[in-house]
């Protein structure tokens, strides 16, 4: 029988065993069977791979965005820097600057030589300020309390409160440091117009109110006049560190140097007397320095007055050089200047009287161009603090200041702020005052701002932004305009209008745009000088009697002098590691706060301060406040006095400035004007807590070595300009002694094109250290932090060696290690000497350091294997080794944010490699600048002009002590300064004798002051030093 069979498919028909097995299953279980090729192991493999791939992908280096311009601005070329004139303003400190902007980022600040005030000079603080722009501590935007906010909200809340206060007639105060900017003052006027109960209170952390007050009383105007040290032949400074920190140090340094220069044609120099307690930069540069106590200060000034006026004596005796100074001042009337750092108006009145007797008014003092650097009024500030604490103020706006930290009543003020209904700070960082305020209307950094300044009457300068604001900050002036309800709140337009209305009329022949462009281009603008002069008509007798009652010829007990340092200043830049690591010009200490004490006092107190900076903490009490800082034994410190620096002990500060020292502002004396020296009730108490101060130089004298520093007295120099050479080392040949370097087996290199060299004038170098910071910024020099400085591993390519004189004989090696009680000081900038016979070059096994055809000693970082033999063999010890990786290393985050934070890295100079660990580095004579100069010249098909290539240190040097140039160019400034005479030699060309220029390494230098350090070892440096000349009388050398 045939049964009809239907089959599902061929498999059923064939009765495939596979089919039979699954025939009864509705869904065939195919999973395993079908995936036969993929086992469990494969799954694990796949999973492993995916996980690994995913994690590898996650490990990929972070993508750094570099976004090209869609349409490139006309004047911005990648890789080519632009320079913009601008103005540095910090508190009342002022400097006209030129900002180097590379690819939209400001990376370097240099002086603006068009300015008649700062004349192209800068200071360490100015040079360092560019890094503050990229400070991680800066506010990212406005803040309400601790919370980041936005401008709309904060404006709404502030306006509401302001209106509330205005409605009830409450008092509003704007507290600020000196305001240099006329436009800012105008903007504040707008604010005041809207809120008439507003009062502006200006104060300065380091007050000059005593001078203003004295001038008001004695010359009839509350001004601070201009001083001109370049016109003075005899200068007496009583505690005024005008080269370091007093009033306008950049300007004064520049002026001072003019009269310190000695050339073949100019054989006169000024003489500087310093009477002071701490060894200051000015004292270190003085020809005669006398250590006095602050309690004597007034009497010293009074005695000077009496000696000059011939009106008896104050009874003070034993002030060395005072009579001599008085006699010389008198003899040089009209070319003399007396300045005092005292903030006591009586002292300043007498100083004015002395200057009046000497005819300084109209010569070295110009009252018709008063300076605006310090307009602070201590009385108003004290009154404000009193008002604030008693609840009489309803609203405070802090602008450009940080009084909670830098005013002696800061603590009270900080507490009082809690009770004030509106407290606003316009700080750029959440500093002490800002964090005590309810609102922070975060300001731009000055490099992001429009602004103007009037440093001196009728001298103006402009600030322009050099970068788009990095954060959501807003210029403080704009905030004032917004709160004033102005229609135009754009501060740029405001400044421009202000200038248009005030100055445009004054200049002729230019259209408005051209006028504005020129001002912006120059950065400065001058109105005709004022003719309003003031003359002295003060009451000397009452000042003298006030002095007689407050000052004492001899005082028992310690006295305290509170001073500003060149690096940290008032402390506003305490979060700037460039300044923290800048060695103090005198103590060479970095990253530390200390009290300076004389050796005798230290011995009495049992303070041991060894060469390595190991010391003990001491408690210093004054005016009822105590601070605990390390003791540093300081030669030159007046016995019985202590010196404590301001600027330390910031509590609300970024990572860099954290926990460094203690705040000395609370120790200041309150009074009519703030007192920076405390003469009674000062206590010092030694503790047993050890402390090590990080100093970059731990040996104080040059051990009587005639080959390091050469110096002469002016009289000796005039008698025989080569007088120093008699003491200089000679080389003994078989029959006679010959100058070092004259014997050589080797002919040396020949530099047919350029022969770069440097001349450093020890006479005009004041030791201020701005070159050190400039070099750091220009060359991306790593900062290493306190511990590494203690380990003697600071990376500075350029350092300033500071040597004290000693009383010991040259063969008394133990005695030579001790500095005199009141030493003479010499500063010697020390950098790679670019030796022609460089000892570093021969010893490198891999030829990583080689000689260029232009006389440079070059370092090839990527060839260096780090044997350090070159550093050992460097007689000048200028080579620096990368002991660790200083970049992208969290261990150096605190000390070196410029290489360890994304924000900080923006400051790095793209033309200079950031060195990796394990390689050697050193001064390159700013090779990148030489290269840029040569390329420019090449593009224009011409030789490099003298002055076209300027090293960073040279540009930073206010006094022109550092001069760089081509020694092959007979017309270059360096050739002229050194008196290089072109030499010729005879060669045989095609059988004929010809005379050609000798481009060898031995330049014939005729300047009698020129010498090379360690000449006798025959390395033949390309850096010449000009001897230091002290304007001292011959016989007084032993006095």
């Amino acid at each position, binding site marked *: 029988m045939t049964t009809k069979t239907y089959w599902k498919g061929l498999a059923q028909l064939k009765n495939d065993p596979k089919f039979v097995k699954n025939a009864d299953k509705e869904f065939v279980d195919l999973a395993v069977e079908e995936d036969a090729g993929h086992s469990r192991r494969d799954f694990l493999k796949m999973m492993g791979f995916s996980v690994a791939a995913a994690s590898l992908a996650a490990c990929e280096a972070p993508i750094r965005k570099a976004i090209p311009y869609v349409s490139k601005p006309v004047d911005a070329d990648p890789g080519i820097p632009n320079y913009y004139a601008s103005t540095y303003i910090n508190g009342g400190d002022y400097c006209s600057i030129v900002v180097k902007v590379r690819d939209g980022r400001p990376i370097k600040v240099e002086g603006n030589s068009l300015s008649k005030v700062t004349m192209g000079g800068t200071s360490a603080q100015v040079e360092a300020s560019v890094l503050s722009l990229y400070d991680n501590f800066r506010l990212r935007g406005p803040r309400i309390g601790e919370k980041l906010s936005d401008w709309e909200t904060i404006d709404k809340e502030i306006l509401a409160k302001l209106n509330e206060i205005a409605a009830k007639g409450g008092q509003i105060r704007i507290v600020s440091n000196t305001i240099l900017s006329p436009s800012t003052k105008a903007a504040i006027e707008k604010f005041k117009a809207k809120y008439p109960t507003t009062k502006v209170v200006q104060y300065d952390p380091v007050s000059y109110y005593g001078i203003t007050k004295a001038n008001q009383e004695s010359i009839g105007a509350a001004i601070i006049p201009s001083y001109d040290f370049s016109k003075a032949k005899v200068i007496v400074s009583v505690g005024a560190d005008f080269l370091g920190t007093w009033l306008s140090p950049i300007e004064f340094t520049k002026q001072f140097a003019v009269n310190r220069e000695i050339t073949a044609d100019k054989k006169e120099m000024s003489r500087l007397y310093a009477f002071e307690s701490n060894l200051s930069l000015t004292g270190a540069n003085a020809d005669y320095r006398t250590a006095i106590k602050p309690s004597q200060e007034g009497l010293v000034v009074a005695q000077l007055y009496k000696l000059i006026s011939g009106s008896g004596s104050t009874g003070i005796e034993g002030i060395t050089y005072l009579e001599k100074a008085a006699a010389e001042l008198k003899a040089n009337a009209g070319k003399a200047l007396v300045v005092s750092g005292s903030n006591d108006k009586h002292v300043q009145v007498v100083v004015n009287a002395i200057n009046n007797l000497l005819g300084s008014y109209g010569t070295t003092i110009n009252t018709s161009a008063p300076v605006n650097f310090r307009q602070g009024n201590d009385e108003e500030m004290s009154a404000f603090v009193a008002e604030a604490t008693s609840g009489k103020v309803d609203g405070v706006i802090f602008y450009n200041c940080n009084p909670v930290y830098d005013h002696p009543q800061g603590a009270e003020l900080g507490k009082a702020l809690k009770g004030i209904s509106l407290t606003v700070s316009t700080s750029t960082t959440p500093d002490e005052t800002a964090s005590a305020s309810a609102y922070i209307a975060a300001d731009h950094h000055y490099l992001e701002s429009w602004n103007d300044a009037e440093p001196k009457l009728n001298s103006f300068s402009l600030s322009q932004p050099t970068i788009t604001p990095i954060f959501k900050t807003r210029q403080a002036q704009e905030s004032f305009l917004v709160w004033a309800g102005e229609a135009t709140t754009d501060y740029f337009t405001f400044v421009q209008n202000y200038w248009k209305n005030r100055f445009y009329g004054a200049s002729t022949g230019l259209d408005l745009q051209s006028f504005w462009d020129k001002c912006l281009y120059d950065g400065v603008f001058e109105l005709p000088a004022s003719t309003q002069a003031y003359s002295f008509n003060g009451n000397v007798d009452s000042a003298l009697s006030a002095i007689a009652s407050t000052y004492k010829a001899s005082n028992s007990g310690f006295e305290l002098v509170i001073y500003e340092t060149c690096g940290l200043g008032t402390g506003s830049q305490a979060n700037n590691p460039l300044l923290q690591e800048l060695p103090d010009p005198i103590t060479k200490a970095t990253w530390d706060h200390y009290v300076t004490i004389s050796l005798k006092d230290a011995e009495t107190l049992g303070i041991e301060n060894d060469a390595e900076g190991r010391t003990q903490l001491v408690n210093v009490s004054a005016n009822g406040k105590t601070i605990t800082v390390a003791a540093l034994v300081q030669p030159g410190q007046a016995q019985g006095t202590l010196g404590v620096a301001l600027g330390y002990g910031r509590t609300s500060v970024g990572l860099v400035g954290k926990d460094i020292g203690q705040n000395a502002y609370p120790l200041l004396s309150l009074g009519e004007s703030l007192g920076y020296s405390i003469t009674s009730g000062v206590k010092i108490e030694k503790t047993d807590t050890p402390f090590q101060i990080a100093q970059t130089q731990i040996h104080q004298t040059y051990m009587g070595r005639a080959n390091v520093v050469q110096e002469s007295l002016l009289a000796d120099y005039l008698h025989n300009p080569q007088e120093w050479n008699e003491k200089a080392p000679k080389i003994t040949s078989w029959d006679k002694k010959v100058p070092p370097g004259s014997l050589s087996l080797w002919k040396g290199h020949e530099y047919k094109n350029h022969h770069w060299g440097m001349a450093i004038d020890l006479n005009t170098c004041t030791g201020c250290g701005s070159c050190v910071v400039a070099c750091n910024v220009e060359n991306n020099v790593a900062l290493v932090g306190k511990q590494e400085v203690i380990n003697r591993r600071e990376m500075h390519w350029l350092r300033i060696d500071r040597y004290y004189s000693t009383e010991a004989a040259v063969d008394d090696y133990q005695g030579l290690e001790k500095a005199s009680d009141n030493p003479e000081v010499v500063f010697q900038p020390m950098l790679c000497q670019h030796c022609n016979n460089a000892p570093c070059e021969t010893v490198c096994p891999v030829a990583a350091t080689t000689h260029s055809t232009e006389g440079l000693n070059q370092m090839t970082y990527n060839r260096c294997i780090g044997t350090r033999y070159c550093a050992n063999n460097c007689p000048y010890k200028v080579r620096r080794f990368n002991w660790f*990786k200083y970049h992208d290393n969290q261990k150096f985050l605190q000390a070196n944010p410029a290489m360890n934070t994304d924000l900080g890295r923006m400051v790095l100079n793209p033309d200079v490699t950031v060195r990796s660990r394990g390689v050697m580095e050193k001064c390159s004579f700013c090779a990148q600048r030489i290269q840029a100069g040569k390329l420019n010249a090449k593009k224009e098909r011409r030789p490099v002009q003298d002055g076209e290539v300027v090293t960073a240190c040279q540009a930073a040097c206010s006094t022109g002590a550092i001069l760089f140039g081509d020694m092959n160019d007979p017309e270059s400034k360096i050739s002229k300064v050194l008196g290089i005479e072109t030499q010729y030699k005879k060669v045989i060309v095609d059988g004929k004798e010809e005379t050609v220029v000798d481009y060898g390494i031995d330049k014939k230098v005729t300047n009698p002051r020129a010498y090379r*350090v360690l000449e006798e070892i025959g390395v033949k440096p390309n850096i010449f030093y000009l001897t230091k000349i002290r304007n001292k009388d011959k016989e007084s050398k032993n006095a």
Partner: protein
Amino acid sequence: MQATSSVRESLITGGKTVRDVSEDISRHVENKPTGSWWIAMGISLILFLFGFYCLATLLWEGIGVWGLNKTVGWAWDITNFVWWVGIGHAGTLISAILLLFRQKWRMSINRAAEAMTIFAVICAATFPLAHMGRLWLGFYWALPLPNTWGSLWANFNSPLLWDVFAISTYFTVSLVFWYIGLIPDFAVIRDRATRMGNKTRAAIYNALSFGWDGAAKTWMRYESVALILAGLSTPLVLSVHTIVSFDFATSVVPGWHTTIFPPYFVAGAIFSGFAMVLTLLIVTRKVFKLEDYITIYHIELMNIVIIITGSIVGIAYITEFFVAWYGMVPAEFYAFYNRATGPYWWAYWSMMTCNVISPQLFWFKKLRTNIAATFVLSIIVNIGMWFERFVIIVTSIHRDYLPSSWSMFYPTMYDLGEYIFTFGLFFTAFFLFAKFFPVINMAEVKSIIKSSSEKKH
């Protein structure tokens, strides 16, 4: 013909026969290691591992973990380097120069001394490598390898490059010389193993002995090679430390810049090398009971070498001072003044006491034939020689020309660690050698049993 003085004491005591020699020396290779060997090896390994940790940290973090600074760029690293290289010199002197001079007393000690040389040179070489900031590049950039970087090559002016050649040549020649000497002895161990039926050992030592067959022709070739290598090694004894001394002598650093350095360094090297050989052999002969092979007479002879070289070194020290005074160069005068009276005076006076005064005690026969006294003094000499290098390197550069840069050097744990590392390495290697290799040259000792053994056969 050997001219053996009749008054000369026997070099091998205890009436050893040829068979005794094989037995006494091979025994240590064949037996299981003793407990004391394990302890010694364990301690060495611990030192090695601790040191390795320090070395790894150095390489990971940077040279900054050491105590060096901007002024003192070399300290313990190069001190240790020179110290170890110096120690190595005794081995070469004993095996090469004394071979040429036919000094038979060297035969009992040359094997261990050469092993010491090789291990010491390895230890020494770790320092120039580790002290480089960028070892990963430096180890081959310092060699004149052909490359594609144009004219970029090693700098033949640099004494450091000379060092590279000197040390590597020295190491190679020493290693070959040592190994050639080992071949017949390996064959002895192989033959004994074959007899004892230990196939593994027989195979290993067969390979090590390159299938030595002991034929007269083989012996002849062996001796020729040994003589040629001795001839090659001889100048190396003088050249290596001369070149090491150039690292300092060719510089401009006061205290380094001295023409006296080459002979002074070579004498110092032999001085310290002999002291180290003594230290090691006094222990080895005790542990392995080899008093009959390394006799008091051997020790006395080595002590005489120590008096001679120690005195040369002492004269060199005094000469340096004389020249510093006579030369009237202030910086150099100060460098020497500073050595004796400056902050490192203790290092200087340790050096003087250990190197100049203490070896003079060996003028007393009682002391130079006293094992305990010799052992103590041999260690003192090596302490002194370490201080010598420290004094030369650190006290010269820590205060050189510009007082502004003067600074001190303070060692860290890692400075110590790297030193310990080389001790660990040295002793680990030495104990492995003592266990697995015949510590005394059996073949050579057998050749003098007839002429210089106590009991004539």
